[in-house]
Structures are given as structure tokens and as C-alpha cells.
């Protein structure tokens, strides 16, 4: 088992929420908690390759899903990850009603603010989980 918490976004291609999920995860693992967190490609862990299995089985994970279909949460669990938090990006869009975050290709300033907010919340969860051991 590794020391890092796995932060796994869905990175869904079709909706802005997938891009927000991806960018939030990148911010956590590259900027906010680079020692305590890492990511794994969702598509790779589902392939069933031995190397992929070793990356995820029994690992504590936080998944970020763009939409209610919850692809990251479902796939990470199926692959044997211990999903301790299932974050739904779309819920952040309910907080200021009518937020216009951009498209699945690029984000507006508002979109980046949402990314920063989600990344901050996940970073707190990562730190908590790291402390729990």
C-alpha cells in the first residue's frame, strides 16, 4: 500500500463538469498536497493489468465525478479501491445558482474559481485521511 491518497477524477470528455473534475484533481496533486496525494488514470485501472491493480487495490481514494453518473466512483470501487469520499462536481454548481463555468474545452474565470474551491475542499479531506493513516 502506498502512502498517498489517490485522487481520481472522471475527466469526462463531454461536459464542463468533467474538465472541472480533472483540473481540481490536478491542482490537489500538483500544488496543494503533492506529498500526500497522487492520481491514477481511471481508464488504466479498469484495464485489469497487474500493474494497474497494484496502483489501486486496497488504496484509499477520493473520487471526483463530473455528473451524477458517478463513473469514477463506480470504476474505482470495481477495481478494488477504497473510496472514502465521492465528490460530485455538479453539487458545487448548485451553490451559486447559474454559475457559467465554460465548456468541456476551456473554463471561464468563474469555472476556475469553482476549481479552486473544490480543490481546496479535497485538499482538506486528503490531509484528514493522511492523518488517519
Amino acid at each position, binding site marked *: 500500500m502506498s502512502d498517498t491518497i489517490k485522487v481520481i477524477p472522471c475527466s469526462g470528455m463531454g*461536459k*464542463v*463538469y468533467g474538465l472541472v473534475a480533472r483540473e481540481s484533481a490536478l491542482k490537489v496533486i500538483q500544488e496543494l498536497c503533492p506529498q500526500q496525494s497522487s492520481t491514477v488514470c481511471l481508464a488504466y485501472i479498469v484495464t485489469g493489468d497487474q500493474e494497474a491493480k497494484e496502483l489501486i487495490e486496497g488504496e484509499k481514494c477520493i473520487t471526483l465525478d463530473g*455528473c*451524477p453518473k458517478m463513473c469514477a466512483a463506480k470504476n474505482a470501487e470495481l477495481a478494488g479501491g*477504497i*473510496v*472514502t*469520499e465521492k465528490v460530485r462536481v*455538479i453539487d458545487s*454548481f*448548485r451553490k451559486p*445558482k*447559474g454559475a*457559467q*463555468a465554460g465548456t468541456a474545452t476551456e473554463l471561464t474565470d468563474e469555472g476556475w474559481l469553482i476549481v479552486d474551491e473544490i480543490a481546496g475542499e479535497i485538499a482538506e479531506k486528503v490531509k484528514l485521511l493522511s492523518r488517519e493513516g
Partner: protein
Amino acid sequence: MSKSFAVLPCNGLDKGAGCIAREIALHLIEKSESEMICPVLYRIADARYNKIAQEKPLLVIDGCQTRCASKLASEKGLKVTAKITVTEEAKSRGFELGDALRLGENELKLAERIADELLLEKKAEKSLGSETAAEGETVYPETYDYEVYKKDKFIFRVPKEGFLFNENDSWVYIVGNIARIGVTDYVQQSLSDIMFFTPPVVGNEVEQFGELGEIESGKAVFEVVSPVTGRITAVNEELAVTPELINMNPYEKGWIVEMELTDLESDKELLLEFEGYFTILKRKVDEFHV
């Protein structure tokens, strides 16, 4: 008390929440005819508990988000009737869980309260069941037979029997004098992920083509146009928390309002049956890419 569960708590020995899960289970066993399933024994020798798990409704109690008890239930192919997670229950009650493994007075009270509420819900369900049976509550089919129209990779379903539609993509299912109303697959596909539903007011009178609330996604706001005339008797309260039910299942769990009808014969003249609406749907889908 006549209700009882097969109780499957987690075995979290390294967290207070796990110990509270066990405490809740103990209360249920003591105060009702519920029976305990030991998760550790169940994992290695399930024969002992299979009968209980089949005969009684299964209640899963997880201590934390790791959800070990839920995973065990899933592994064993059990049908879960109810589940709770102690950390979520504590959060919703504004109760701060500590790290201590020995339960203090507050933790014991929390466990007892959760157990009592679980038993009360069971009682309420039972009494509601007998009341509704007496009043003849409208019962809707759990699922329907659908016709499908595909465009690129999008699937548009329209139920074949029992529904009427208007040209504004609302549907109505009528039982006696009561109607259940919602929107069609065309609406939910066009809107994509639905984030908000603003319901109408229960008790309001609405005419055919009047407004029945608004559905909002990141793309647009859609005003639901009533297919019928009547008085609103209920709104689907689940949509306040889970508006995406309209995306997932617009004809079943994603229903929007119920109404008591006042002018059905006249309303029917402007309603479409399956064939008529399906033709309109196909044209709309072909003309506008969703």
C-alpha cells in the same frame, strides 16, 4: 413491536464510529425482534446467517465512508433494505465524533437515538401502509414498456401505453381522477444535467397549458407546461435533493407533480396518444441536435 431487521454492522474497532455502529445494532436487537449478523463470522462462514438475511429486511450500519459492511453485503449478494453511515448521521445531527474508542455518554445517547429513529421509521412505514390501503392511494406501475428512437448515440424513450402527452413534451398518467405529470426524454436529453427544480405550490389551481414549475440545467431553464387542468395535490419532493432523477428516469422516479383533475374530457381534445407524440418527438430530434 412487529418490525425487525437483520442487522449487519461494520466491525470498526479502530474508530469511535465503528463502535457506535455496534452500539446501534445492540439497541436494535434489545428493543425489537431484530437479529445480529456478525460481519467477521459472516465473511468466513455465511451459512449461519443466510436464513436471517433472507427472511428479514437487511439493515447495514457502516461506521465511516470506508463502508465495510456495505461492501460485505454486496460481496454476498444481499439485498439491502436500509443503510446508515454513522459519520453521516452524526454530521446531520451536528454531533462531533471524537477519536476515543470507548464510548462516552454522548456517544451512547447518539447510538440509542439513531436506533429508536430506525424503529420508529419502520413503525411509520407500517402505519402509512395501512392508511393508504384504506384510502385507496393511487398506485403507479413500477416500470413501463417503451418505444425507443435513437439519434447518433442518444436514446429517446416514450412509453407506449397509458400515457398522454402535449406538444410541449409533458406527459400525464391518469388513474381515476388523479394525474401524475412529468416531462419526456426529449426534455431531459436537451437540458443535459438537471440541477434545480422549482416546484409549483401544492393546492394551486392550474389550467391546461399553465405553468407547473421550472427545470434548470447549466444549459437552459425549462418551464413545464401542464397537460391538464386541475389542482396540484403533490410535488415530487425527492427532486429538491436529487433533481437528476428527471434525467435518470423521467417517466418513473422523475415524475414532477400530481393533480386532481377538473376538466379531463375537455383537456383530452388537445392531448396526444403515443403514436401522435412519437411522431412529433422524432421530428424534433431530427431537427435539433441535442
